[in-house]
Structure formats: C-alpha cells, structure tokens
C-alpha cells in the first residue's frame, strides 16, 4: 500500500461504526444480487434437469391430444418410421392413493391423500439399458414385463406413507381401489420432477385395470444417429394419421419451462438492483461524510503538494476498500439467502419447475463482486471530484458546510443508476454461465419490466430534492402537534444538505415502494384468481373425477338429485392443436353458463353465442387467446382431428376470461363437438351450484354422494386458496428481500443523522447553552428522523402504487385482467414500518447529540 493508501485506510478506521455500516450496506446489496444469481442458476439447472427427466434419452416426444391416448396402430406406425430406433410409450394420469388399505370400502373424507401421478411405462423398454427413461432404482428391483400389478415408488414418498418393498399400495382407479405391490424404491423424487416426489411408476399394461383401456399419453422417441429431427417429423406427417398428435423436442420443452419462470427471475433481478442502489447511497454518504470532516486535512495535503489526482485516488482507494470488503461479505450473506429462497419457493411457475441448488455459478461470483465494486466506485465518483476541488486555502479557512448544486447531485445519481443498470443488462445472462439453456434467451419483456421499474424509481429519487422543502414542512406537522419546539428546530436541518437528505429519503422511498408494489401485485393476483374463477365457473364447488365420466352414467343427475342443489354442469379439459401449437380447451354446457350468468362477453351476443356453442361448430375464446392469435368474432378456427382431417369452429364470442387450462386459459367448446370430434369421453369435473341459502345445509349430503361416485368435491374458495398459496409463498419471499432494502435505508438514515449531528456540534452546544435540555436535543434528532420517515413513506407509497399499476401482471404472477388493486392495509403497514425504522435509526445519533459537552462545543471554533 502506498502512503496515500495507508492514509485512506486510516481514515476509514477512524470511524469504525460508519465504515462498518457502509460495508454492511453494500454487502446486503451484493447479497441480494448474488442470491438472485444463485437462485437463477438453480432455476436454470432445475429446468435442465426437468427436461432431462421428462424427455429422458429421447429426441422427440409425440403427445396425444385426445383422452383416449395414442392407439396401438399409432405406436406401431411410429416404430415403423425410418430413423426411429426406440419408441417408449408412457401413460400419465393423476389420481389418489388410499391411505389405509383396511378401509377399502370407506369412501368418506380423508380416505385419500393429496393427488399422485401414476406413470405407466413399458418395462420391456424402460427397464432395460436401451430404455429412454432412467428410473434410478435405489432399492428393490424393476418392474417385470407382463402387466403384473407392481409399482415403483419414490423412496421419500414410501417413507412418508410408512410403506416398504413388498407392501401394498392402493391406487384409486376409475372402478375403485386397485392394490399394487411395491417392488422397488426410486432414488430422489422419481422420474417426474414436476410431480414434487409424488409419482408412482407402474407397468403400462397394468393401467387398463386402473383407468380402462387407454392408449399412451405420449410416446418418447430416440432417433438413429444418422436421422434428423426434421426428417423424422416429415416421415411421421405421412405415416401417423390415426389421431391428432403434437410434437415437441427438448428445446420446446425448455423454452416453455423457462417462460413459466421468467416473471420470478425478473422480479428477483429487480429487487437486487434496488437493494444495490440502496447500498450505493450508503457508500456515497459515508465518503462525503468522511470528506466534509477532512476538508482541512485534504487542504493541508494539497498545500503540502498532493496533486488533485492524488486526492481523487485517495477517495477512490477508500471506496475500493469498502467495495471489496462489502462484496466479499455480501457473497457469504447471499449464499445463505439463496438457500432460504430455494427452501421457501420449492417449485416455480404453473409447470412446477423445481429449483436446484442453490448453485454457485463461478461467473456469478465474479459478477457480484464486480458489480459491488463498480457501484461503490460510481458512488465514490462525486465525493472524489468534490475532494479534488478542495483548495489548499481551505486548510486556513474556518470550517463551513459547503452547499452543493442540484446539478451535481443529478449527475451523481445518473452515474450510479446507469452503472447498475448497464452492468445488470450486460452481464446478467453471462453471469448465469453454463446453466443457461441454449436457445432459450432472456425474453424482452423479462428485461423491459425491470427497466420500467428502474425508471420510475429514478424519477422519484430525482424529484425528491425538489419536493423536500414543502413536503418536509408538511411532514413535520404531526410532530409539531406533540413536540412543537423540537419540530420547529428540526425542520430546517432536513434542508441543511438537500442532496444528503434526498438520497437518504430516496433509499427509504425505494424500499417502501417495492413493498407497496409487491403488495399491490399480490393483491391483484389474488383478486384476479378469485374474480377469474367466479366469473367462469358455474358453481359454488367443483367435484373432480380422475376418469372421464360419460353423460350416460347419470352422475350429473345423481348429484342434481341431492336436496338443495340447483344446477350441475359437466366440464372437461382437453387440448386442441391450432396453427401448430397446443391450445387448452374446455368442454362446457352453454345453457348452464347462460342460466348461471357466467362469462363476461367482450364481443358477440351472449345469448346467441351460448346457444350456438351447444349446437356445435362454434367456439368462445378468451381475450388472451384472441389477442395472442389476432382473432375476432366471425373468424374460424381450423382444428385438426384424427385421420388427417380438421373441423371448423367459428368464433361466436370473445370473453374476458376463459376456463383455467393447463398452461393458460382454455377456449370453450360445446359438449356435442367435444365428444364427436375431439375424443372427449366424459366430464372430469362437475360444477355444482346450490340453491340460494342452501350451501351450508346441502354441503355434507352432496359431499357424501360425490365421494360415493368417486368424485372429490372442492369448494371454489379451496381452489382459489390453493392457487393463492403459491402466490403467497413467492410474495413472502419478495417481501423479505424488499424488507432488506428498507433495512439498508435504515442504516443510511443512521449515517445521515450521525453526520448531521457531527456537523451541528457547535449549534447543539449553542442550543444547550441557550437552555435546551438533553431530552429536548434527543427528541429533536428523533423528530428529524421521523420527518424523513414521513417524507420517505409518502413518496414510497405513492411510487409503490404507481409501480403496482405499471407492473400489472408480471408473467406468471397474476393477470392484469382483474385490474390493479390499491393495497391500503399494506400501504399503512409499509408507512408505519418506514417511519418506525427511521425513528429507530435515530436512536444512536440522538444519544450522541444529547451527550455533546456544551463547553467543548462552544470552546473551539
């Protein structure tokens, strides 16, 4: 270290508390950044693992559109296609496990746990080395070919159930419970990561006993070395004409999984940027504080021959020390934080992508440290320039607080914002390193949103110094009620150094804005879910079946016969292919929707559309689908069905929301078309509406009847809360991160107030000499902090509401269709929290101020 370097080090050590605060500030920023990176890497790895697990060794997946599945003729045709070496059929179906084999006849509540996914495979293919899916057996043996009722269970699930090898597992099938013998335990969570460890593997041949004779849900195909995916697709197009199908390869799957996690990643990136911004404030304050204390010293250095450049370097070396220390500490904190994130979030997005890790991407480590140091240096730029301007004469002059221009402050802010922004944009994808799945890319909307938020926050911060005067005066009014003297004396000190106050308040504003915006988002996500389900589902509860229930079975009628039930409406979810992509569809009864008053029509005549739906040849599409494909009423959808043919469905209405589909909103198709053209065998859910006031009375009877029919009744609110729970888990995580940002702002307030106090030692001495008590001095500083808190809370809540509106529905985190909500309770809590933190931050500075010795304060100049 050079002589100047030692000087820099010493001046940091002279104020250990302040130095520590700044290091913690930058460390928290880097921590959130690094945690976001590590989590993102974990998500990417999770996507990669999911793709591997889902696709196995296959190059191509041929999926069935119809519930019947792919027929044997299709499988034979696939196997006969040139270039195909292995074709493994898989059947997947959700059902329930019976908890207690002794209560086989008991169909009442609690008999079944939460759903499991039954995966049927062909043991002759997937049990062997040539197989496509690696089952990773942990204990026991594989399935024997031949269709015996044998099951492989994830070791964790077996443990939870208290079952072991050779025990009996009772699976609920279409015709009642079926016993399976556990022959082997699977390592980890089983072959389907998105099933969250609740997947049971059985021989495909045994599934006809469970679910009736059904074909494969899909066939996974491995190609010969010489064959290309494109070539095989062309061949299949010729040979596969029995049923409609959809093709997907690894890249498709990765892209769709990735899309479902984009919103989460964008939001964590954003919060990281904001937190870092707060850290930059702290660094800036620390350096300018150190500087204003050392004006004379620097003047003396200059008089003794130090060049301006050397003075710049002095300040920058200080910044570097803070930046390096903070970044390293930040990495450690960040790793801990990412563990927390992974634990909290678990599965992500509507496709249930698991987060691996946390994973430490080496580039991410370099990136976090680099950004930490860059931000610190950017924050040090303005203080360094100011220090360079100190003239040798300054050493001779009595100390005097210099006023700095607003222009200088804008310049500084812009520098920090641009540095953080550019660094983020440029390096974020690089920092994720090899975990990024090739070809996926970060989509434009993912980056556009954070940029928008960033712009809003920047504008708010830039405006802060301008509104500080009038706002500060207003903010001190409540304090003036109780402590008029202290309020009057503290009022001026906010405008003492407008820049410093603006930055301090700005950090608080930003943190609170995040909290309020997140509250708004969570609120609108909830409201959207609730409003969505209420808008489209013609019932108070939904009874779901694990198998298609045909109209001829009379289930609908049996449910409707329960006293107090007004209407029972069958619903089936399926999929259609449109312009080469999979589209969710739902079979519904238009008359029921009409009678129940569901659906909000944006275009088309309601009555006519619902009648046309039941008559056939017509469809009603949700706004989202219409927008995506540029459709309007009167357009015709050409939908392929089996045998190389297609049916036309004319759009008779556009509605605000469609039925919830597997990965979006479903288009609505009448029952007659669904069964005659699209292979829908029956309803997989019944919406049940009670007569007014009968819900409580009729509920238990209906539940009993439903369970007797192997249906699982769930009230609408239950579905809503299941969806909302997932949101809540995400948002509680984001909230934690945003609270960290507010905490940093709190540290900034400690810093600023302490600096104000040190600059005012003389003034406080005079006030004390003129008769101000220690308690009054103490309260004066606290009121000062409270005023800052009120200003920050006001601006933060305002910015937060604006942001909440601007963000609308971040991808996968809710929808704008429900309209943004203003989270009043959240605003109240955030404001109280902000003001509370500010006043808490005043504690130590106020103590220092009240203990100032009058004699010393007035004795020396």
């Amino acid at each position, binding site marked *: 270290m050079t002589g100047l370097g030692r000087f820099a080090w010493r001046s940091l050590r002279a104020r250990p508390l302040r130095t520590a605060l700044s290091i913690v500030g930058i460390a928290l920023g880097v921590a959130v950044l690094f945690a976001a990176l590590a989590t993102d890497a974990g998500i990417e790895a999770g996507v990669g693992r999911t793709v591997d697990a889902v696709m196995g060794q296959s190059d191509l997946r041929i999926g069935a559109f119809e519930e019947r599945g792919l027929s044997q003729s299709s499988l034979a045709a696939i196997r006969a296609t040139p270039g195909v070496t292995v074709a493994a059929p898989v059947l997947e179906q959700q059902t329930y496990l019976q908890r207690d084999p002794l209560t086989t006849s008991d169909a009442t509540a609690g008999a079944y746990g939460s759903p499991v996914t039954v995966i049927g495979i062909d043991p002759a293919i997937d049990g062997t080395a040539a197989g496509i899916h690696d089952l990773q057996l942990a204990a026991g043996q594989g399935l024997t070919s031949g269709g015996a009722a044998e099951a492989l269970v994830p070791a964790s699930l077996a443990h939870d159930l208290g079952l072991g090898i050779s025990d009996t597992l009772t699976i609920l099938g279409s015709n009642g419970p079926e016993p399976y013998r556990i022959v082997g335990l699977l390592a980890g969570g089983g072959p389907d990561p998105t099933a969250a460890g609740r997947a049971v593997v059985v021989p495909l041949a045994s599934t006809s006993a469970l679910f009736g004779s059904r074909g494969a849900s899909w066939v996974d195909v491995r190609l010969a070395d010489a064959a290309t995916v494109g070539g095989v697709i062309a061949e299949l197009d010729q040979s596969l004409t029995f049923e409609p199908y959809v093709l997907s390869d690894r890249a498709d799957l990765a892209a769709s999984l990735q899309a479902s996690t984009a919103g989460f990643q964008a939001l964590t990136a954003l919060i990281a940027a904001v937190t870092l911004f707060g850290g930059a404030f702290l660094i800036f304050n620390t350096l300018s504080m150190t500087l204003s204390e050392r004006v004379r010293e620097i003047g003396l250095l200059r008089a003794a021959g130090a060049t301006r450049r050397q003075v710049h370097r002095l300040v920058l070396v200080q910044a570097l020390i803070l930046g390096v220390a903070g970044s390293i500490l930040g990495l450690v904190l960040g790793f801990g934080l990412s563990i927390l994130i992974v634990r909290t979030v678990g599965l992500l997005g509507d496709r249930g992508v698991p987060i691996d890790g946390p994973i430490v991407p080496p580039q991410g480590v370099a990136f976090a440290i680099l950004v930490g140091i860059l931000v610190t240096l950017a924050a040090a730029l303005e203080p360094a320039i100011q220090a360079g301007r100190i003239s040798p004469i300054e050493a001779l002059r009595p100390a005097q*607080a210099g006023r700095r221009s607003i222009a200088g402050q804008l310049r500084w802010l812009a520098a920090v914002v641009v540095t953080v922004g550019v660094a983020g944009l440029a390096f974020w994808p690089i920092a994720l390193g090899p975990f990024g799945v090739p070809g996926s890319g970060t989509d434009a909307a993912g980056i556009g949103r954070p940029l928008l938020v960033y712009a809003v926050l920047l504008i708010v911060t830039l405006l802060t110094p301008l509104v500080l005067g009038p706002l500060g005066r207003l903010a001190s009014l409540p304090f003036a009620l109780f402590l*008029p003297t202290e309020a009057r004396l503290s009022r001026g000190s906010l405008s003492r150094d407008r820049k410093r106050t603006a930055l301090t308040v700005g950090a608080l504003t930003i943190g609170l804005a995040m909290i309020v915006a997140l509250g708004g988002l969570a609120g609108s996500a909830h409201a959207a879910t609730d409003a969505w389900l209420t808008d489209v589902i013609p019932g108070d509860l939904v009874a779901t079946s694990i198998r298609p229930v045909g109209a001829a079975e009379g289930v609908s009628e049996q449910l409707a016969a329960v006293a107090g039930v007004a209407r029972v409406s069958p619903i089936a979810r399926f999929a259609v292919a449109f312009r080469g992509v999979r589209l969710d569809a739902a079979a519904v009864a238009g008359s029921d929707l009409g009678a129940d008053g569901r659906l909000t029509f944006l275009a088309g005549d309601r009555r006519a559309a619902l009648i046309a739906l039941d008559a056939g040849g017509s469809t009603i599409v949700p706004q989202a689908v219409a927008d995506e494909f540029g459709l309007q009423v009167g357009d015709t959808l050409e939908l392929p069905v089996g045998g190389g043919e297609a049916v036309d469905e004319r759009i008779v209405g556009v509605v605000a929301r469609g039925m919830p589909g597997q990965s979006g909103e479903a288009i609505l198709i009448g029952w007659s078309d669904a069964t005659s053209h699209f292979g829908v065998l029956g309803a997989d859910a019944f919406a049940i509406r009670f007569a007014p006031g009968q819900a409580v009375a009729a509920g238990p009877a209906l539940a009993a009847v439903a369970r007797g029919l192997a249906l699982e009744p769930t009230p609408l609110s239950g579905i809503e809360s299941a969806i909302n729970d997932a949101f809540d888990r995400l948002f509680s995580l984001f909230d934690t991160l945003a609270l960290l940002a507010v905490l940093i702002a709190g540290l900034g307030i400690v810093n600023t107030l302490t600096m104000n106090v040190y600059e005012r030692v003389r*003034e406080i001495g005079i006030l004390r*000499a*003129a*008769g*101000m008590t220690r308690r*009054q001095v103490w309260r004066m500083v606290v009121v000062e902090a409270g005023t800052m808190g009120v200003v920050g809370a006001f601006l933060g809540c305002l910015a937060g509401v604006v942001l909440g509106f601007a963000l609308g529905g971040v991808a996968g985190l809710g929808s704008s269709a429900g309209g943004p909500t203003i989270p009043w309770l959240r605003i109240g809590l955030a404001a109280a929290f902000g003001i509370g933190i500010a006043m808490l931050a005043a504690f130590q500075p106020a103590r220092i101020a009240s203990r100032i010795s009058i004699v010393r304060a*007035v004795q020396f100049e």
Partner: protein
Amino acid sequence: MAIQQPILEARDLTKRYALGETIVDALRGVSLTVQPGEFVALMGSSGSGKSTLLHLLGGLDRPTTGDVILGGETISDLDDDAATRLRRDRTGFVFQFFNLIPLLDAAENVGLPLTIAGQDPRRGEAAERVRDVFELVDLGGKQHHRPDQLSAGEQQRVAIARALVNRPAIVLADEPTGNLDFTTGGEILEALWRSCAQRGQTIVLVTHDAKAAAYADRVEVIQDGLIRDEIVLGRRADHTTTALIARLAQLGL
C-alpha cells in the same frame, strides 16, 4: 456603592481537567462577587482560565470544588436538567464564534430561548420582547435576514440580543469582539453598554483587550487560574482606556 445582596457570587472555585496523565488546573481558587447592574470585565492572557471561569459562572460546567451562587441559589451542584433550566431562564451567553444557527433567521435566533421554553416568539408578549431587544442592539430592520446575510458585527449583535431576550439575571460574554476589527468591536461593546446603562443589565465580559475592558465598572485580572488583581474604574460615559492601561502597566501586564 450601596451594600446589596450580590446577584452572583463565586466562592473558592477550582477546576481541574485531567487529560490522561497530565492534569491541568485551569482555576485554582477563585472568589468573585457581582452586584446587580454591575458590568464586570475578566481580563487575562490566553490560557489563564477566563473562559473556564465564565462557564462555571453560567452553569455550563461544574467546578471541581467551590460554589457558584446566582440570585441566592447555589447552582454549581444542580443536575443537568436544573442547570439547563437555569440557563434558559436566568442567564444569557455570547460566545466568540458562530453564535447563530445558520438555518434560522435573525429573529428566530433571537427568539430561540423563548422557543425552547415552549413559547411562540412571533406572537404576543414574546414578539414584543424580541422587537425590543432588536432595537436595543440597533438592528431594527434586519429581523428576517439569515446569519450568512449579516456582517460579523451584526451577527454578534444578534447574539447579544438573544442573550438579552429572556431578561436574564446576568449576561456572560466570552470575547465577543475577539475576532472583529476595531470599529465593529466598538459597536458590540456599545450594544452591551446600552443594555447595562439603560436597562440595568448585569454583565460579565471576558476579554484580553483593554479597550473592551474599559467599558466595565470593574476589571478582574486573571493569571494562571487565580485572580491577580482588581481594578475599579467606576461607571463612566467615555470608556477611555488610559487609566486602565496605566494600572495594567503597573502590574507588569
């Protein structure tokens, strides 16, 4: 001079500062009596203990031993709150540098003791008092100037006005002309003198300048923490320094 109850009495004050190993005896047994309406100057070279004495007299600090009695009440053993209240209500201070709060205008600075006591110096009787002291220090038109818009002399006169505003029993001024030029210093002293002559304000002035000390009725000469001598000048309208300088010369100062 008629025998009166003294307004201020210091009995055998000592003050010891311990700076680590080294011990400084700033005062080594000082006794002093000030009568109501008197103008007393404390003179002495730098480091002789003048400021220390003044701080003890005004309750800014506590003596190591000895008593200070203000208006019949012993103030040197008051706790911090009581001493603070005493300063607010019964004493007024003027220091050498930076007496004013830069963010407050002249009137607000003057009204500070009233504000601190919970009064609104812009209204009623309090406003009357503020206006009155502004006139006394001859700054009628400058009530709403901020400190940085006032000259150094004007700033000191604002400080004097503040010291006077709560009609204190005693005004304590520590080298108020210390860093001012000759003429400006004169304005300050005139203002102090007017308050003494016209209002009967008791004043203790610390100075090392004979010209300033010549305004006083009596000069106490301090050296090495002890009162070395007392020079009684009596109340005079002309403030000539010749007599004082002659006496000081006699003492070898």
